[in-house]
């Protein structure tokens, strides 16, 4: 069982000293744990608690998650889980990790075989707690057929209700289409998206410095099953990799780091690795996005999106020199970003882009038949840690998004996530404002969201418009899928407001007539 705690950096990097120190302490503490582990294997869980407390003395808080996951490696101590899962084993596993942007996309191809006696209907995936926390999306599909006739059948993935694995490993269970019989095997493609797992290091950079980040993972795939053969490929955005943990056999080929193949790893094997590399892609994070989607049966759908954008990469330190930024764009402020691309539905109209002090004049809109693209620039380039707020609004013809279902209900068919490309949203709030007089709203969203109901008042409303509020945290571009809101609506409700206006004017005129024809003076 090999493990190497990440070594990092070339010798000329100033921060390495400090890092080295931390790692030394890490190493000694890990050794302690090994000793403990060998002698007191049975008492694993209690001791690990104690050891963790010890560890905290040595290590900074930020390292905690790594340590935490380290335990998955040693504490093979069992839970009720192991008895039920040992029946399955993974023949081959291939994992491709894409670190090109700040949203990490992982594709895991598994071939699972049932060696047990009973049929298995679920396959479990395990994630270290640090990853589980940042897991934005997970999808699985069963691969049927050979290469040419390959077809994918999406499978249901749910957080498992099993107890947590060793050291808090979280499980997700994939429900197979057909229970896997004894001796049978199935190929499964799993893709998942991790967010906020790239840690800028150094934490603060000057304007002229590139942005370096750390990525932590395990060379071995964490799994409750034994894995016969596995490889992991990590793709970095450029060849500029400062350092990476070697777990032999591991190789670097241009922008790819290859770990493996490793043979016959027992369940819950873990081998922490650390990749330190340059990543100058925009770390654009929308801290909060509030979208108001207002349906008007008079012909338009109006969308207003309020953004709080932040550059979540290495924080900027020192001054900002405009002359350097303008004259040397390749060196100066490489980690900053100026442009963002917003993908809007086709046929959008009345698009605006402003913030609370007025219109932001730097944007371009290209409309097309299949999609519209809005290229926006915040008021100033965003360097690390800088924030900006803005509002994007647009209208869409109603017939593009609103339909009538067979049972006479109307439904809105609209995309859920943030329309800005390659952007992470920490919290999204979709507010669907239904027209006044609509009833019984119901929502179909392909993933779990929090739902609330509100009432809003707009032009001439009396009873108010029902609002369906959908909230979700940690949203990535993959969440840009359509969702539906069904509701009942009687067309007569549309006439309420015009009638109201007409009657108000009518009474106004009648009152004026009456006033003119009445004599209300005191003297005669």
């Amino acid at each position, binding site marked *: 069982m090999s493990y190497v705690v990440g070594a990092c950096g070339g010798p000329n990097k100033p921060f390495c000293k400090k890092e080295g120190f931390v790692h030394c302490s890490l190493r000694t503490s890990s050794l302690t744990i090994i000793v403990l582990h060998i002698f007191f294997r049975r008492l694993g869980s209690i001791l690990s608690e104690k050891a963790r407390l010890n560890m905290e003395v040595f290590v900074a808080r930020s390292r905690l998650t790594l340590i935490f996951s380290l335990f998955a490696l040693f504490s093979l101590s069992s839970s009720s889980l192991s008895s039920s899962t040992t029946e399955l084993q993974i023949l081959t596993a291939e994992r491709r990790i894409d670190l090109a942007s700040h949203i990490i996309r992982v594709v895991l191809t598994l071939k699972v075989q049932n060696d047990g006696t009973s049929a298995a209907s679920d396959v479990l995936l395990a994630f270290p707690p640090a990853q589980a926390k940042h897991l934005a999306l997970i999808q699985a599909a069963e691969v049927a057929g050979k290469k040419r006739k390959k077809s994918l059948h999406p499978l249901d993935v749910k957080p498992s209700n099993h107890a947590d694995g060793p050291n808090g490993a979280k499980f997700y269970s994939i429900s197979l289409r057909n229970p896997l019989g004894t001796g049978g095997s199935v190929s499964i493609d799993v893709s998942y998206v991790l967010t906020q797992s790239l840690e800028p290091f150094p934490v603060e950079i000057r304007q002229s410095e590139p942005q370096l980040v750390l990525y932590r993972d395990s060379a071995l795939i964490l799994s409750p099953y034994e894995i016969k053969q596995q490889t992991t490929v990590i793709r970095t955005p450029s060849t500029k990799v400062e350092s990476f943990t070697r777990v032999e056999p591991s190789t670097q080929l241009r922008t790819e780091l290859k770990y493996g193949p490793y043979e016959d790893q027992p369940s819950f094997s873990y081998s922490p690795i650390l990749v330190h590399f340059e990543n100058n892609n925009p770390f654009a994070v929308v801290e909060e996005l509030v979208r108001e989607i207002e349906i008007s049966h008079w012909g338009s759908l109006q969308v207003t999106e309020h953004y709080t954008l932040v550059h979540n990469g290495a924080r900027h330190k*020192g*001054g*900002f*020199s*405009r*002359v350097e930024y*303008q*004259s040397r764009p390749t060196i100066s402020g490489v980690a900053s970003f100026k442009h963002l691309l917003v993908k809007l539905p086709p046929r959008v109209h009345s698009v605006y882009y*402003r*913030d609370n*002090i*007025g*219109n*932001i*004049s*730097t944007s371009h809109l290209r409309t097309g038949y299949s999609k519209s693209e809005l290229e926006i620039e915040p*008021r*100033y380039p965003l360097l690390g*840690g*800088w*924030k*900006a*707020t803005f509002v994007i609004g647009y209208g869409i013809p109603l017939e593009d998004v609103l339909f009538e279902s067979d049972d006479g209900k109307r439904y809105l068919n609209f995309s859920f996530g943030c329309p800005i490309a390659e952007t992470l949203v920490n919290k999204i709030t979709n507010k669907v404002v239904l027209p006044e007089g609509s009833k019984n709203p119901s929502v179909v969203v392909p993933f779990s969201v929090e739902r609330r109901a509100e009432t809003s*008042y*707009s*032009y*001439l*409303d009396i009873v108010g418009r029902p609002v369906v509020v959908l909230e979700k945290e940690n949203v990535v571009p993959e969440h840009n899928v359509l969702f539906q809101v069904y509701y009942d609506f009687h067309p007569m409700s549309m006439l309420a407001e015009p009638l109201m206006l007409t009657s108000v004017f009518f009474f106004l005129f009648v009152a004026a007539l009456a006033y*003119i024809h009445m004599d209300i*003076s005191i*003297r005669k």
Partner: protein
Amino acid sequence: MAVPVDNLTKPTPASSTLRFAFGNVLAFFILLLIGVLAFSIRLFSVIKYESVIHEFDPYFNYRVTQFLTKNGIYDFWNWFDDRTWYPLGRVIGGTVYPGLTLTAGTIWKVLQSLNIPLSVETVCVFTAPVFSAFAAWATYLLTKEVKGTGAGLTAAVLLAMVPSYISRSVAGSYDNEAVAIFALIFTFYLYIKTLNTGSLFYATLNSIAYFYMVCSWGGYTFIINLIPMHVLLCIVTGRYSSRLYIAYAPLVVLGTLLAALVPVVGFNAVMTSEHFASFLVFIVIHVVALAYYIKGILSPKMFKVAATLVVSVGVVVCCAVVAVLVAVVASSPTKGWSGRSLSLLDPTYASKYIPIIASVSEHQPPTWPSYFMDLNVLAFLVPAGIIACFAPLSDASSFVILYLVMSVYFSGVMVRLMLVLAPAACIMSGIALSEAFDVFTRSIKFYISNLSEFLQTDAGDTLPGNNVSPQNEVLKNEKKEDTLKERPSRKNKKKEKENIEKPYVKSKTEKRPLVLPVEASFFALFLTVLLGGFYVVHSVWAAAEAYSAPSIVLTSHSHDGLHVFDDFREAYAWLSHNTEVDDKVASWWDYGYQTTAMANRTVIVDNNTWNNTHIATVGTAMSSPEKAGWEIFNSLDVKYVLVVFGGLVGYPSDDINKFLWMVRIGGGVFPHIKEPDYLRDGQYRIDSQATPTMLNSLMYKLSYFRFVETDGGKGYDRVRRTEIGKKYFKLTHFEEVFTTHHWMVRIYKLKPQKNRIRGKTKKSKSKTSPTTPRSGTVKKNPWH
């Protein structure tokens, strides 16, 4: 044109009422269109730019309105603003004219209660255009009281698009003047209305309108001086009547009481010399009223005796009062007059004594072209209007003449007061145009009726009894028009009967109708229409090109299209998102309001300019060398310094061009800053000939830091059109933290004080030397 002739030949009562009704409806729709015109001509700024608050002061008003709508009226009255004038702060509730804010706040509240989701900003942006429509209607009412409906409508059209008023009331120009001009005209209308009707109801309304004016603008002193002057004029010219008394006395009593309710005015309403004229006239009118009363009850002989008695007593009392007033006024240092008012009376006062007032461009006297720019053809029509007002002279028309004369004087003192002149000029021109049209169309009508008669007689259908002389016909026509004018509101039918003795009706009937040759009439009519056309073209041009730029976003047309300079908001947005909430930002006072409103950061000085010393401190810091400037800013807790620099793109109103005012204002309080140190042979320059004091001043350094690198070592300043004097230098106490895209705003951070290390060996040496500059800086730094 045949219709009135028909009516004249067969004047049945049914057809005439129908005609009146038709005329009223027509007038109503014309007024409606005038309102639409006044509103929509001011929307150029929204269409060409965007719906945004303009310039400097409107940002403050906007911020106050936001506070009002968020926190309610009571918090507003008690608002102590700690985000400005740091560390002093400012009591906003007691130092603003709340009229505009309350108006917009109320509009917003009403809209909210009707579930119309307009933002506060939108309401603020469109307040000025809406009130210009109101102002046009008020002008109609006022002019109608003076010269009838036709003149009223013409004056309203002219006011709806007078460039002078447009310049202050385009959409987004959310300033006091926007509502104040309406309040001004409406107050004058109610005064004239009271004067014409003698109704106490209108007198009360007049006081309330005056109260609204006091709430809205400091220019209310114009009203409270103009109306007494008119009253005095009426008394002197023997036009005293009970109507005059009713128009004036309640206004003074109620108006002063109401004015004192406004916190910013308070006891000033009875204590400053701006208001004394009204009280003096108040006494005079009572004396006169008493005299008339006594004259009524006594026999002429007795009256003579009484008159001598009263006059002698009155003279004594007046002398006593005047003596007391003079004593009170003389005891106060500025003789009871505020600086701005003094500069009204003595145009050279401000530039001599108060550099802050003189440094504002809108406080300068206007040039002749600005009269033509702001009034255009009105400037030529006004004399004709004055003549028309003299024939015949009534109470109302004398008031309008007086208003015009006074406002011409004031506009000559301060370019900003051109705004007060504009309504007067519109009313006069409206009267002139309307009279001219009257004459021309009358001549044409006369010709046509002559012609038809001639045709009738030609047909041989001669009926001798039916032959009415054309002269009489015109007279009839006049009378008809008069009766039409006499019924401005159907509501007051009964009142009208009592008020038949209207002054102008009598005089009008005496008038000989003037008839011109028909060719001349047609030609003159054509020319007048052409004149009006020029006015419209000019006004639209002024509204579209000259006055609709919001000044926070600039545009330039180049060969590759429109280029937008949005640097100010870029800087403010940067400040608001990337600095701490409580950081203090120092800049010249021009940008104070914008910084607090857009960036929400605490500023040291702002456009309110109430504390000259504080502004002088900032001026001194900017004029000092880097270290001394740093010390002053550091003692004020300043974290960021913001300078506006136009040298890269050629934006002329930047801080280097304002720098001499900083030196002057700073030097006015701290005498070690001397203006000649910054001038070479009396010339202000920043090139290699500039003085070392200039080249070492903080403002120079902050403006031109690393500027030379933009054009490869030349450092060519596009505003001053010269190469800068000192090209390569480093900043030791400041750090550039942000510069906008076109370099128009540069923000620097004060570096923290350096740790004193390695000082041990040098200590003995430097111990003596730092003390001398230190003592020097202590003197220089006003905060130590």
